[in-house]
């Protein structure tokens, strides 16, 4: 259940992001990219997030998780391929090991949808 700890770090990162805003934003959706070649189970992460944000400034925030497939590139033949864990990770065309990972290691907050309340309009001293 390291997703609980992942969530803790996610919240800390979102807290850092919030501090950049002079007026507290109301967050609607946090969009994550979660690679297939990571130790994260998206359903566990979502569950953990919902529990963690209860009674916080993020209560009600939706977590959108887009899975990213594992894609490797074969250094011998130059082709990109999707390893099938059942058959191993080597290049299917020439058997070269998984040297370059093009995608699948992502653990990223890609986008945050939020509503920024308008700053109070300063009063016009001339009026």
């Amino acid at each position, binding site marked *: *259940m*390291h997703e*609980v*700890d*992942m969530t803790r*770090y*996610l919240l*800390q*990162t979102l807290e*850092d*992001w919030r501090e950049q805003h002079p007026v507290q*934003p*109301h967050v*609607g959706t946090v969009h*994550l990219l*979660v690679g297939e*070649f*990571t*130790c*994260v189970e998206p359903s566990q992460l979502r569950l953990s997030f919902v529990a963690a944000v209860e009674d916080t400034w993020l209560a009600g925030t939706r977590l959108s998780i887009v899975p990213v497939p594992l894609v490797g590139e074969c250094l011998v033949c130059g082709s990109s391929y999707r390893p099938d*864990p059942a058959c*191993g*990770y*080597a290049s299917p065309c020439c058997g070269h*090991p*998984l*040297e370059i*990972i093009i995608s699948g290691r992502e*653990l*990223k*907050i*890609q*986008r*945050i*949808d*939020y*509503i*920024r*309340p*308008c700053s109070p309009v300063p009063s016009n001293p001339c009026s």
Partner: protein
Amino acid sequence: MHMPISDTVNLSLLAANERQARHNRQRFDAWGLFCINVMSSPGAGKTILLEQTIRTLKDKQAMAVLEGDMTTRLDAQRLAGLGVPVVPITTGRSCHLDAAMVSTGLQLLQQQCDPASLDLLWVENVGNLVCPAEFAVGEHCKLVLLSVTEGDDKPLKYPVMFREADCVLITKVDLLPHVPADLGFIGNHVRQINPHCAVFPVSALTGAGLGDWLAWLAQQLLAKGPSPPESPTAHQWSEATSTDNHLTAPHSPPVPPACATDDLP
């Protein structure tokens, strides 16, 4: 009036841990010590490997250990018996060490010794082949252990951990006559995922293969940069044991000549 905004941030989900890990690394570098994160499943032999390694090197290298365990201080007590500073880190429900825990461990370590006087800091992680792979602690090197009793297929089942490894030690090779494990299969499975990883079969119990492991470690320390004044040369390190069935990585540095097993208990 409210303005809906979509902010493309592209931040790492673990940005907070990565920031702390970078800070830890800066401290390691400022102190001139080399930090190794030791990971494996429970019972693969992390602690006995550290016992043997520390026992072999402690007259030449100043070392300390941050010892992670979910509960108990049993391993920390074992290692403290070797006369090196040991800080137990009990993680409670967490199944891994993270950078913040290691940072706290460093504060406690400073109460026992001056980290600038150390050459090597071992971080023995919680036994787990999944979670520790994703949490950097600021280490210079990731060492992963896999015992022959766990099965040849484990690198394929826990690929992230083996992809992250700089070195894999196949442990408990003294049990090979009794278990259906194939060192060639294990090595091939590791290299399928991580072709540049160094792989050495060892037995901390008998000392087999420890010479190859120690020689590799010496190369890492020498490559780290300016050596501490008392650091040994790679040749001086070759006082431990060797084994005939080693599986060095294709790019591995030349292994210094091996010596007899007499030095090991």
